C-alpha cells in the first residue's frame, strides 16, 4: 500500500460513523453505568498518604510571603496610609498601597459580571475586610507582624447594611467611584410574562403569598484561597499556581486586565481542597501576588486565613423573595410570581453568564406544568463583601428551587392537601419533554413521577405519615418534608452563555501512545469530584483501553486545551461530552487504520470495545493497542490518513442538561428546646446516564449535608455597622457528623437526549434539592402550631420564636 499525501485525519466514511447512540428518555434502573461502574478512585492513593499537592504545600526556592491589610470598618474614606514603619521591618521586602497600584493602573479590576472591584482601596473602603494594602516578607509570620505597623486613617461613613432600605434616597451612596452614581441600585431584571401571569392569578381560586429569605451563606471550602506567583523577568513569563476552578478563563482575564501576553501566562490549579463556587472568581489577593512577584523578582505566596475567606471572598444567596402561587381549588397550579431583592454587596461579583444577571433563577417555575410565570428582580449594593457565586449550584438555581418548593408546600398547607399528592398532580409528564417553561428554559428530559414515587417507596411515606399521626396524638413533633427539584446545569451553549465574552464550551485532547496507553487532557478542574477517575472511565468506555491505562491531565493551562472550568455541574455535562467525542474521533481513526491492517473495507469492521474484527470472523481482529503501535510504526496507513493516534475537540453543548430528583426528609423537633434533628433523609436523583455510582453517591451526600447546614445553622450575619459576625468557624457553623443522618439514596435514569452518553451532571443536585426538603419537614412538624413558614437558618432560638408564633426573618 502506498502512503498517501497528507490529508485531514478526521474524515470518517459515512458507514463507519459512530452509531447514533443518542438515547431517548426512558427510565431503566438496570442500565449499566458507563465505563467500569463502581471503580475506586485513582487520586486516592496520594491523598490517604498525605501526598496531595495543595497550594500551600508548594515551596519554591527564595519564595516570599504576602499578607493583606484589610479594612476594619465597613464604610469609610481613606484619609491617609502610612506604611513607613512596616517598610522598616527587617524581614519586610515590599509594602504596596492602593495609591501605588493606581500609579500602575492596577488599583481596580473587572469582576466577572461587568462591574469593577478594587484590588486595593484607593478612595474608600466599602466592606469590612476589604483589601487596603499588602506586605511581602521573608516568612508568613513576619508579613502578618508588619500589617500591624501600617497606619491607616479613616473617616468613618454610615454603613449600608439593611438591603430593604438600601435604595432609600437618604442612604449614603456606596459606589461613588462609578461616574454619576447617585444611589445603591445595581440592576433590575425580569423574566416571564407579566400580563399572562396576572390573568392566570385572576382566574385562580386560591392565591398564596409568602415572603421568604434565603440568607447570605458561604461555600467555605476547607482549603482557603491562595496563590503563588512566579514572574520571570528575563523571559517575561508568569507562572501562577492558584486555587481556581477555572484556570483557562483566569489566564485570559489576567492577560486582558494586566496586559501580560497570554502565551506567557501559565495558570496551574493544583489539588484543590474543595471549591463549591468559592474559587470561581479572581480575588484581589491573586492580583497582588502577581504584582508582588513582578516587583520583587521572587516567587510570592499568598494564602488566606479562615476569617479572610469568610469575610472577603464570594458569598452565596442573600435573596429576599416575595413569592405568590395561584391554583385552582382542586390543586392545579396555574402560575407563580415573585419579586426578588438581591444583596450583591459592595461590588457586583456575581459569577454567571453575562446575559443572566440573576443567574439561572429563571427556572423558578420548578418541575411543574404552569400556565404562566413572572419574576422581577432588583439588585442593590450594600457595605458587605462582594460575590454572589453559586454555593454548589448552577447560578442561583438553589434560590429558585427553594422558592417554588416552599410555595408548593405553602399551597398544600392552604388547601390541606398532602404535599406528595399536590406535586404528583402538577409534575411535568414524560411526554411533555423537551418542555419549554414559561420563562423560556428547554428542559431536556425527565420522568418526574417515577422519580418521586421511588423516593416515596424508599421512605415508606405512608408509614411515616401513620407514625406522625400517632406521635401528634401524643403531642410529639415529627415532620416529613418533600421537595422535587429540576436543575439547569452544564452551561453553555456558547452563543447564549459567556463569562466576560468567553463562550462556555470545553476542549478535550486525547493522545493514545504507541504502547496503547492514553492521556486525556481536559480543561475542567477537579476540586474533589474525582475527574481523574470518572474521565478515565468515560474514555475507557469509548475506546476500550482500561481506565488504569488512561491518565487524565487537568488544571494546567500549558498542558490542556481551553475551556471554561468546573462549576455549575459543567464537568461531566460539558467536558465529559468533549471526552466522549474526542474518544470517538480517535476510534474513528483507529477504524481506518484497522481496515488497512486487516486489509478489509471499514464497512466490514465491527467495534467490540477494545478491538475491531471482521464481520462474521471475530478471530480476525486487531486491538486498539495494536492499532496504536501501527499508527506510530512503519507499516502502511490508508490513503489520506496521517500517522499517530491523537485527536482534539472543542465541545459546544446544544442545551443545558436538567438533572432532577425527589427528596424526603424526616425530622423530630423537641418542643421544649426547639432543637430539630434530621432523623432520615431519602434522596432519589436522576442525573441521566451514570458513570461511577460510588462517586455520584458521594456527590449527593455532600450536597445533602449542605442542605442540612443551610437549613439549620449557616448564615453570614452582620451588625448594624456592617461588622461581619460570622468571621470564623466558631461563628459560621458547618455541619459535623453529629448533625447529619446516614443518607439513603436511590436513583432513576433518564438520559439527556443531547449529551453524547446521556449524562447530566450531579455535583450540585443535592445542595439544590435538600434545603427546601429540610425546611418543609420542620414546617410540617410545626403544623400543630398553625405555622406555615419560618426562614432559615432554623436555629433553636429562631425556631423557638416561630413556635411562640413570632417567626422573624433573619435579615
Amino acid at each position: 500500500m502506498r502512503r498517501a499525501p497528507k490529508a485531514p485525519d478526521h474524515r470518517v466514511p459515512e458507514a463507519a460513523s459512530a452509531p447514533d447512540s443518542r438515547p431517548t428518555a426512558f427510565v431503566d434502573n438496570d442500565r449499566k453505568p458507563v465505563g467500569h461502574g463502581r471503580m475506586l478512585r485513582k487520586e486516592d492513593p496520594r491523598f490517604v498518604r498525605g501526598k496531595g499537592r495543595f497550594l500551600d504545600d508548594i515551596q519554591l526556592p527564595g519564595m516570599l510571603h504576602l499578607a493583606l491589610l484589610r479594612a476594619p470598618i465597613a464604610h469609610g474614606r481613606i484619609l491617609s496610609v502610612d506604611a513607613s514603619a512596616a517598610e522598616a521591618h527587617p524581614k519586610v521586602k515590599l509594602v504596596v498601597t492602593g495609591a501605588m497600584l493606581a500609579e500602575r493602573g492596577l488599583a481596580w479590576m473587572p469582576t466577572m459580571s461587568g462591574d469593577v472591584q478594587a484590588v486595593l482601596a484607593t478612595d474608600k473602603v466599602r466592606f469590612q475586610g476589604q483589601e487596603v494594602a499588602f506586605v511581602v516578607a521573608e516568612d508568613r509570620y513576619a508579613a502578618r507582624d508588619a500589617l500591624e505597623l501600617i497606619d491607616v486613617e479613616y473617616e468613618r461613613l454610615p454603613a449600608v447594611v439593611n438591603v430593604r432600605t438600601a435604595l432609600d434616597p437618604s442612604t449614603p451612596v456606596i459606589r461613588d467611584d462609578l461616574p454619576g452614581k447617585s444611589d445603591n441600585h445595581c440592576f433590575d431584571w425580569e423574566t416571564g410574562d407579566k400580563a399572562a401571569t396576572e390573568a392566570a392569578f385572576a382566574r385562580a381560586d386560591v392565591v398564596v403569598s409568602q415572603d421568604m429569605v434565603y440568607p447570605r451563606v458561604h461555600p467555605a471550602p476547607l482549603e482557603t484561597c491562595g496563590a503563588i506567583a512566579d514572574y520571570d523577568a528575563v523571559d517575561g513569563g508568569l507562572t501562577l499556581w492558584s486555587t481556581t476552578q477555572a484556570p483557562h478563563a483566569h489566564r485570559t482575564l489576567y492577560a486582558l486586565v494586566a496586559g501580560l501576553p497570554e502565551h506567557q501566562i501559565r495558570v496551574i490549579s493544583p489539588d484543590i481542597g474543595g471549591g463549591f463556587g468559592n474559587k470561581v472568581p479572581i480575588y484581589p489577593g491573586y492580583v497582588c501576588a502577581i504584582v508582588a512577584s513582578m516587583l520583587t523578582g521572587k516567587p510570592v505566596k499568598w494564602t488566606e486565613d479562615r476569617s479572610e475567606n469568610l469575610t472577603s471572598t464570594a458569598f452565596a444567596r442573600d435573596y429576599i423573595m416575595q413569592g405568590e402561587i395561584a391554583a385552582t381549588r382542586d390543586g392545579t397550579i396555574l402560575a407563580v410570581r415573585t419579586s426578588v431583592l438581591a444583596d450583591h454587596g459592595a461590588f457586583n461579583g456575581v459569577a454567571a453568564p453575562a446575559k443572566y444577571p440573576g443567574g439561572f433563577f429563571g427556572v423558578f417555575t420548578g418541575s411543574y406544568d404552569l400556565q404562566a410565570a413572572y419574576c422581577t428582580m432588583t439588585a442593590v449594593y450594600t457595605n458587605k463583601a462582594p460575590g454572589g457565586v453559586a454555593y454548589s449550584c448552577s447560578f442561583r438555581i438553589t434560590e429558585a428551587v427553594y422558592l417554588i418548593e416552599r410555595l408548593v408546600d405553602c399551597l398544600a398547607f392552604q388547601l390541606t392537601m398532602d404535599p406528595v399528592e399536590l406535586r404528583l398532580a402538577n409534575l411535568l409528564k414524560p411526554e411533555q419533554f423537551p418542555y419549554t417553561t414559561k420563562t423560556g428554559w428547554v428542559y431536556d428530559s425527565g420522568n418526574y413521577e417515577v422519580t418521586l414515587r421511588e423516593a416515596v417507596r424508599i421512605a415508606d411515606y405512608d408509614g411515616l405519615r401513620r407514625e406522625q399521626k400517632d406521635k401528634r396524638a401524643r403531642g410529639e413533633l415529627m415532620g416529613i418534608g418533600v421537595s422535587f427539584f429540576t436543575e439547569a446545569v452544564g452551561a453553555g451553549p456558547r452563543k447564549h452563555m459567556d463569562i466576560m465574552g468567553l463562550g462556555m464550551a470545553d476542549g478535550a485532547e486525547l493522545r493514545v501512545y504507541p504502547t496503547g496507553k492514553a492521556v486525556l487532557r481536559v480543561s475542567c478542574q477537579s476540586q474533589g469530584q474525582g475527574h481523574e477517575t470518572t474521565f478515565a472511565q468515560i474514555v475507557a468506555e469509548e475506546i476500550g483501553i482500561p481506565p488504569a491505562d488512561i491518565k487524565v491531565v487537568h488544571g494546567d493551562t500549558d498542558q490542556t486545551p481551553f475551556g471554561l472550568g468546573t462549576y455549575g455541574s459543567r464537568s461531566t455535562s460539558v467536558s465529559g461530552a468533549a471526552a466522549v467525542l474526542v474518544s470517538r474521533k480517535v476510534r474513528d481513526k483507529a477504524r481506518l487504520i484497522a481496515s488497512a491492517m486487516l486489509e478489509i473495507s471499514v464497512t466490514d469492521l465491527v467495534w467490540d470495545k477494545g478491538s475491531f474484527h471482521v464481520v462474521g470472523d471475530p478471530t480476525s481482529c486487531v486491538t486498539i493497542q495494536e492499532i496504536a503501535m501501527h499508527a506510530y510504526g512503519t507499516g502502511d496507513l490508508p490513503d489520506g490518513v496521517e500517522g499517530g493516534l491523537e485527536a482534539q475537540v472543542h465541545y459546544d453543548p446544544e442545551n443545558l442538561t436538567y438533572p432532577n430528583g425527589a427528596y424526603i426528609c424526616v425530622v423530630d423537633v423537641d418542643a421544649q428546646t426547639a432543637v430539630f434533628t434530621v432523623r432520615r433523609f431519602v434522596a432519589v436523583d436522576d442525573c441521566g446516564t451514570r458513570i461511577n455510582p460510588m462517586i455520584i453517591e458521594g456527590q449527593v451526600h455532600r450536597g445533602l449535608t449542605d442542605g442540612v447546614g443551610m437549613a439549620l445553622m449557616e448564615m453570614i450575619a452582620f451588625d448594624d455597622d456592617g461588622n461581619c459576625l460570622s468571621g470564623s468557624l466558631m461563628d459560621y457553623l458547618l455541619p459535623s457528623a453529629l448533625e447529619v443522618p446516614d443518607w439513603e439514596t436511590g436513583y432513576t435514569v433518564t438520559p439527556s437526549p443531547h449529551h453524547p452518553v446521556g449524562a447530566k451532571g450531579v455535583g450540585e443536585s443535592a445542595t439544590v434539592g435538600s434545603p427546601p426538603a429540610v425546611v418543609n419537614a420542620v414546617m410540617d412538624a410545626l403544623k400543630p402550631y398553625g405555622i406555615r413558614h419560618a426562614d432559615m437558618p432554623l436555629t433553636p432560638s429562631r425556631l423557638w420564636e416561630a413556635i411562640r408564633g413570632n417567626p422573624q426573618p433573619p435579615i
Partner: protein
Amino acid sequence: MQVTMTVNGAEATGEIEARLLLVHFLRDHLSLTGTHWGCDTSNCGACAVWLDGEPVKSCTVLAAMAAGHEVRTVEGLERFGELDAVQRGFMECHGLQCGFCTPGMLMTARALLDRNPSPSEQEIREAISGQTCRCTGYATIVRSVQWAAAEEAGTRTSIVDDGAP
C-alpha cells in the same frame, strides 16, 4: 529557640520562633505537608496529629509545647510500605473527595480504633465530630472506619454495600 521532638519515629530538630505553631513546624520546617491547616480556631480538625498518642489540633499547639514529645502525622501511618487499614478503608469506601480533611480524619480514626476496635456508628460519629468534612457528608467516612475495623478484626467479608451497583 531550638526544639527537638520525635516525629513519626525519627528525631526532628529545628531552630524556631517561640510562637511557631506545630502545624507550621511540621509543614514548613519538616516538609510534612500531609497535615493541613483549615481554620485557626480548632474547629475544622484538618490539622489533627498525634501528640504522645492522643489526637490534637496542631494549629493550636505551639511547636515548643511538642518539644521532647512524640508526634505522629499521616505520613507515619504507612508501615513498611503497607497502608494502614484506615487508609485502605477510606479508599475502599469513598471516605474522601478533595482529600483536604482526610489526613486529620485518618489520624482520629486510627486513634479511635486503637482504643475501641469495634466502634458503633454513633461512636464513630462522635469521634470525628471535632472535624469538618465539606465533601463526603460523613456517611462514607463512617463506613470507611467500619471497613477498617472489620478488616483488622478479620471479619470483613466483602466491600461495604454502599447501595451502588
